[in-house]
């Protein structure tokens, strides 16, 4: 009886170690395969009849190669475009981009008044607090799926918005 318990405990320990090792390998494999980490994806809350919404995030490129964000996809919009707001000749210009560059070992910060994804013609404007599934396609062949939170936000980071 005692021997049986000992064997079972041993088997359980082996299984646990094996399982943990496998999980860690799996995690590491996933991490190294992507090289792209997306932080704080968010959509700015907008009036219920807003014809266009802004999507923002931080894209970290942990690889040694420059990467391009080629397109963004989510359901329920007529069109999705990559844009950059540029101050030029006293005007704020929204310039459509073919891609967004994320430098090797660098970060691209999508934020109001700068780089942003324009979600055009929403079937329904998502409400504050909702989470929207977004997929991002990069030129290294990977696609990342993230959940963007709908929240308030101005030009300065989280300024005065409680």
């Amino acid at each position, binding site marked *: 009886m005692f021997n049986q318990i000992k064997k079972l405990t041993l088997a359980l320990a082996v299984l646990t170690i094996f399982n943990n090792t496998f999980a860690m390998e799996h995690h590491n494999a996933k991490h190294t395969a992507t090289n792209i980490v997306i932080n704080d994806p968010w959509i700015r809350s907008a009036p219920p*009849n807003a014809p266009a919404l802004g999507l923002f995030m931080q894209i970290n490129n942990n690889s040694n190669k420059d990467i391009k964000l080629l397109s963004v996809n989510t359901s329920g919009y007529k069109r999705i475009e990559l844009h950059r707001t540029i101050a030029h000749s006293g005007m*704020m210009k929204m310039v459509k981009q073919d891609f967004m560059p994320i430098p090797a070992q660098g970060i691209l910060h999508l934020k109001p008044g700068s780089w942003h994804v324009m979600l055009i013609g929403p079937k329904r404007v998502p409400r504050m607090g909702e989470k929207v599934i977004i997929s991002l396609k990069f030129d290294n062949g990977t696609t990342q799926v993230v959940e963007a939170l709908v929240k308030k936000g101005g030009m300065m980071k989280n300024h005065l918005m409680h």
Partner: protein
Amino acid sequence: MNYKLLSGIGVVALAVVSFYLVNVDKDYRAILSQQLKVSHIIYNPDKELPKFSLLDYDNQAFNNEHLKGDWSLVLFIYTHCPDICPTELMDMASLKRLMEEDKTAKMPKVVAITFDPLRDTPEVLKTYISYFDKDFIGVSGEQAQIDRLIKPFGAYYERVIVAENGKQTILKASEKLPENALKEGYIINHTAWIYLLNPEGQIFAGFPSPHKPKEMMQDIKLIMEHF
């Protein structure tokens, strides 16, 4: 003789008083300008806004008289703008909240006038502008009236139509939109200053983008105290 002498004294006194008033006025503006953090005084007491007649978001007349009596903050926006315009409106909502908390000065009336009345009808503006604050006023109307009104503010815009192949067509404010533009859509490049108008309905100060509500509040309070 006495009459001539008195007239002479009167003229000299008038000249001295005028000289004094003009210089005091200049001094006050110069001193005020030095204290302002995020705004520029662009006040010209001899300049009135051109007569205009527009519609507010309740389809009621909105003209020069509606910018008189109280201080106002005027901004020009369009609702298809996903970035700059909602940021400006959110900044105005933040400013209003700050001024209400501060309690030492009355928040000016916020008036958002569209660059794009073709798409931004009063009904569209009602839903859109009220979302940011129910007290903000949205204004639409005839394009020609809006184009004339924005000039003395130094505000301007251009419409950009992007074809499917990526080709951009830029239309100046006076140029007519092609028929398919409404269907295909267009964006608007525009100036993004916010303007403070005095109770006489004259442009007094301008705030360039990006806007900082806290600093804006300090400047607005200074201006209103010294006016």
